[in-house]
């Protein structure tokens, strides 16, 4: 009995030590830690912009929590007012508090960044895994389609998809997800080709496991770490594409605050009210930097080649 217990505990200890090793590597990477810290601030800001979590239970509209003012409240008579103690980032061209809009804007950026990467990741992983695993004609067709999609710059591709689907948050997420999917497909395809040569795949096949089972149980878990690294890096790209699309007016409908459209609103007033564009621009910079640093850190600890 004692022997049996020891036999079952051994892998758990091994796994825990593996996690601890990865965590120690990550903690030693200061830039990655900075990325994580900045990302947590952005996430915290987005979640606690208002008290939605209380309002849901009380059946009322959410009230600003971190945001000092209602981001939609217009004070047109004081529009473009300079930063002050009441409005630390000034007022925009409609007299709305820029700080509150920057805080609420984090929601749109994170929602688009995370959701579109999830869509792109799932879609791309499915395509790449199928192509790599099945090979032959299926692989050829899927990867050539991917090549065609990758030939378009992400912004142009996003523009084309939005031109077909129309504007709005959901369409924006879908558009960016489609834009990102070829990159995930390429990585998933390459990794699948490598993983499927492993002996444990051959062993599973010799035990009579079907294609679907092998793909899901044996290949997918082994390509996930590569995809996670990619996701963290491409979240930054997704946020940047969202800002670009919002900037050219194809993004979120007004009056919802989005950093890209806030910058666009301020371009008319760059010389007399630079704060209208400056602060959402800084918010984009910090968020994109956070995801890039975090992505680099994750790559360093998860990619064995980088460790060498």
């Amino acid at each position, binding site marked *: 009995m004692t022997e049996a217990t020891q036999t079952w505990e051994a892998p758990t200890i091994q796994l825990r030590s593996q996690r601890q090793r990865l965590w120690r590597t990550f903690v030693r990477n200061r830039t990655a830690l900075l990325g994580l810290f900045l990302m947590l601030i952005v996430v915290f800001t987005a979640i606690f912009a208002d008290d939605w979590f209380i309002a849901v239970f009380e059946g009322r509209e959410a009230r600003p929590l971190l945001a000092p003012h209602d981001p939609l*409240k217009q004070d*047109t*008579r004081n529009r473009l007012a300079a930063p002050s103690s009441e409005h630390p980032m000034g007022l925009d061209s*409609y007299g709305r508090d820029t700080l509150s809009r920057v805080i609420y804007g984090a929601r749109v950026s994170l929602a688009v960044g995370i959701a579109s990467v999830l869509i792109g990741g799932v879609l791309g992983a499915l395509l790449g895994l199928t192509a790599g695993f099945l090979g032959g004609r299926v692989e050829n067709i899927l990867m050539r389609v991917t090549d065609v999609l990758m030939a378009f710059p992400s912004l142009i591709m996003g523009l084309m998809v939005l031109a077909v689907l129309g504007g*709005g948050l959901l369409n924006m997420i879908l558009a960016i997800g489609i834009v990102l999917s070829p990159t995930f497909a390429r990585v998933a395809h390459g990794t699948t080709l490598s993983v499927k040569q492993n002996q444990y795949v051959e062993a599973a096949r010799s035990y009579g496991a079907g294609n679907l089972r092998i793909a899901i149980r044996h290949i997918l878990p082994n390509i996930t770490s590569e995809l996670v690294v990619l996701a963290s890096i491409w979240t930054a790209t997704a946020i940047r594409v969202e800002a670009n699309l919002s900037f050219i007016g194809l993004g979120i409908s*007004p009056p919802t605050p989005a950093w890209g459209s806030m910058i666009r609103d301020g371009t*008319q007033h760059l*010389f007399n009210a630079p704060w209208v564009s400056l602060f959402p621009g800084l918010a984009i910079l910090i968020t994109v930097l956070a995801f890039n640093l975090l992505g680099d850190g994750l790559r360093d600890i998860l990619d064995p080649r980088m460790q060498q």
Partner: protein
Amino acid sequence: MKRTVLAISVLLLLLVALSACAPAAPPAAPAEQPAQPAEEAAAPPEAPAQPVVLRYADKAADLGTMDPHFAAATQDRNLVDMVFNALVRYKPGDGSVFEPDLAVELPEPELVDGKQVWTFKLREGVMCHPSEQVPAYELTSEDVVFSLQKSANPDTSAYAGEYTGMTVEALDKYTVQITLENPISPVLFFPKVADYAGGFIICKKPYEAMGADAFKTHPVGTGPFMFDSYSPQEKVVLKANPDYFRGRPKLDAVEYRFMPELNSRELGLKSGELDVINGANEGQWVERMSGEEGILVDVYGVGEVATIHFNMTVPPLDDVRVRKAIAYALDRDEFLALFGPPVAANVYSQVPAQFLPGGLTEEEVKELGLDYAVDREKAKELLAEAGYPDGFSLEVVSSERESYLKPYQSMQAQLAEIGIDLKINVVDHPSMHQLIRQDVNPIVVYVAWRPNADVYLTRFYHSDSIVVTGAKPDTNFSHYTGIDDLIEAARIELDPEKQIQMWKEAQIKLLEDMVSYPLLYMQQVTARRDYVDYGHELKSVLALYPQITENTTINK
């Protein structure tokens, strides 16, 4: 090895840096140039006079058309204004005064068999610009008849509706007679033959020689400036017409540049690369730019009127209580603050009383109790009465342009106060125009200038003008049919006072039924270097630019 490479690299960098600092080499002399005698060579060559070119930057991204009978966008109207003349013209810089242009004088109408006859004597010696196909030639009544008939033809003009019931004939080489089935007052007649829209006179021979399509980018008229070149999305160059009948222009050329970015235009003006720019419709911008050294800012009419039209066939806007509730929820001063004086001002009737006879003044509207002063409690009561105590949702499309997006977003915030959720989908400007003419918007914000009360009322409120389903679909977004009789009666009324009274009655009815909510007018804003003199006082220009004529000068 590494050191050698480093040394060579540093040396190369130094060479590159030195060559960058060296003065630009003079252009090499042509090899076949004969040797000059020593004295002649020593004498400084007489520099050719620099052409005087006015560089104007507009906010448009590109040209639409330079066929004046289709020109509707501001940049198109600006350009055709410099290239073409008409029988009569609005005095340069003052759109409230008519004066003769191609005609020798302003005629008096005659009544012949119940029809109204206007006889124009043309100036002699007015020359059509030369073109590739046709050399310069004298404009005669044949050209005038051809041009006005083109304006009346819906296939060749966007303004054909203005010329219904009008026949034009040439009595002799320099006499043109226009006969109207129904007599109208001079206030309504002269705009039809003035230098705006269908009134512009084009030259027949070049139009026929090059065809309608080529004419759009190679216009030929009689104006002070002639078409020279067009670079898509960059500029149109017009050059001085040496044979202009009012004398050769003082400018040699006008470069009309397309620069949609305000900041680029502003930087261009400040650096002296541009002479005149289209500014921002904002009081703050006017104030800031006025403080810049060497720059003058002009704010002038005509004021384009922003009006909120309600589609009366769409629930819940088919209920007058809902429309009135919206009117009571809106605060004109909130909208006004977005643009600010001196650029914008409130209007209280559909025809702007500040610019045109026939509009209702603020005092008149307030006396009638039709100003719908902001009262959100009353608005909520009216909504509750109409069965919408919790409000409702509406979805609209808006242009990305500030002049549209600002009123829509301000309206969105104000209507939210009474529970109305207005969803705004932002599209590009041409798409918005297309969509609202397909009747997609329950509420339409429209910004426009029209030359007189009749045109305002006919195009926005006559049943023939109802979008999609009207006999001549135009811009009746509200589907209103209640003032056709007043519009038609006023049109043929020859007594100006009675005519004005009828127009006012029509607008009172519009306000009582809350068909549309008159919001504000926006004036034109341009900034110029202080060495630019337009050659006229700037009060109001229908073409929505400061007007560049033969008298415009650059005094550097």
